[in-house]
């Protein structure tokens, strides 16, 4: 199965409720994906009253136990004030200057801690964990999160291992998230093409191939809709994909709409989920415009 979720807040007054709205959606799709989950949240880049810091948020995760306090201390030794470690989920988000990512990546590659970068972005933070998604939400206090956009995934694995690194969302470039319900049949072919073009992968997951293909199209100058159409053209399989950038939320389904998706739109928010039950507890749902996306039509909402 798998569950996919997207939530874009339109009414700023709802931004403090993003986390609690998101948790009702994830809980409803828990049984669609009890193996693992991933949650991405976008919040404006600010520190106190300063609206723009320009710092890149680097979300870290691991499949092995990590002494995060010790890692934070060694980061401070090496980078001082330049890298700010902020506890997030079970791990850390590192806030680094825009040009500081390279040095950080070299440091992490050589560090003894077995950590991996789950996501980078100006506004984006990502956590992933194995186990029931409902438990993950409770463990990390997701209901208290604030922000203007979120995507989430509950995973029932079919083609690759159940680990943190195999969990969605995949973040192939800054502030771009992809979550997928379905399966791709020609992903090995597309993966070989991308590897030959110098693209690097974090896992052998089929959905990661679609995410990296999408990113490659975006980096070549496509807009989100064009890039998504290329994914439909080149990737063969069943999919509902929910895609987000720093200011857009998008959903697309394969030609036969083999995998479910429902959208609810109100003045306050746009919510996308695998099943209506994930939308049923949202505020104002009884007067929302509710519909199922048509096959092969790219739906995009901007902030």
């Amino acid at each position, binding site marked *: 199965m798998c569950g996919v979720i997207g939530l874009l807040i339109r009414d700023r007054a709802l931004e403090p409720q993003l986390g609690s709205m998101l948790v009702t959606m994830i809980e409803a799709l828990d049984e669609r994906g009890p193996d693992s989950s991933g949650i991405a949240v976008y919040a404006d880049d600010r520190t106190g009253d300063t609206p723009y810091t320009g710092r890149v948020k680097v979300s870290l995760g691991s499949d092995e136990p990590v002494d995060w306090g010790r890692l934070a201390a060694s980061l401070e030794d090496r980078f001082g004030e330049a890298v700010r470690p902020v506890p997030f989920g079970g791990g850390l988000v590192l806030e680094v200057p825009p040009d500081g990512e390279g040095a950080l990546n070299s440091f992490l590659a050589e560090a003894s801690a077995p950590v991996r970068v789950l996501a980078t972005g100006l506004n984006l933070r990502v956590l992933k964990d194995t186990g029931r998604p409902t438990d993950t939400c409770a463990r990390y206090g997701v209901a208290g999160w604030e922000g203007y956009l979120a995507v989430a995934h509950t995973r029932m694995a079919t083609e690759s291992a159940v680990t943190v690194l195999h969990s969605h969302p995949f973040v192939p470039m800054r502030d771009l998230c992809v979550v997928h319900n379905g399966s791709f049949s020609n992903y090995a072919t597309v993966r070989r093409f991308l590897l030959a073009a110098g693209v690097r992968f974090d896992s052998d997951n089929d959905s990661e191939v679609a995410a990296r293909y999408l990113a490659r199209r975006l980096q070549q100058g496509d807009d989100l809709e064009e890039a998504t159409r290329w994914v439909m053209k080149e990737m063969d399989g069943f999919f509902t994909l929910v895609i987000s950038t720093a200011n857009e939320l998008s959903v697309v389904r394969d030609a036969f709409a083999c995998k479910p998706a429902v959208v609810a739109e109100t003045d306050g928010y746009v919510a996308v989920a695998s*099943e*209506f*039950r994930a939308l049923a507890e949202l505020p104002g749902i009884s007067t929302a415009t509710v519909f199922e996306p048509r096959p092969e039509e790219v739906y995009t909402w901007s902030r």
Partner: protein
Amino acid sequence: MESLNCESLGTRAVNQRLRSLPDGGHALLVQPRGRHNLAVGLSSRISIEIAGNAGYFVGGLGGNRDGTGPDIVVDGFVGWAVGENLMGGSVRVRGSASQSAGSSARGGTIVIEGDASLRAGISLKGATLAVGGNAGAMSGFMAQSGVILIGGNAGHGLGDSLYEAIIYVAGSIDSLGSDAVITEMSDEDVLTVKEIVSETGLDHIDPTRLTKVTSARQLYHFSTHNHSAY
């Protein structure tokens, strides 16, 4: 009237309690919260109201070969395949239905007061599927017998590879599927629809102003000559 809380009892216990009700019994299901497989496989002549949204397969596999069975009303939305393989009785959805409403249903009546999504009435085998609003793409796919009545518009590929089921559409049709054709409404068709409208209460549908879609009967048997049509 028995009131059953889906949240505290769980799906299996709810269905067992429903199964134990005698003919003429009533039950109210509360806190369904989009739960799948509610009120499935029931054969008694009971009435069930579901107070809220139901998930996949609600009312599926219900009823008997003689067309009798439970009458189920869902006061909300339903997920995929409401009334799948229904034999008798009825399922009424006061909201909208997700994909494959009434799939493979052999008898009884499935009423969707709102919209039905893609593949409504796929492989219908004799039941009546009445949709008050619109029906999504690929509806009526390979439907073998029975009637699909659509009070609104129909999406792309309506009636693809249709057998002997008949589809009536009040609104527009985005496109017909392979081997589906528009045929003229007869007086008998008007009578059939009048009966369905009266039974289902979808009285915004005017039985005299419908488009009838049936099989062109060109693709019944595989032939290499037809290869390009598949």
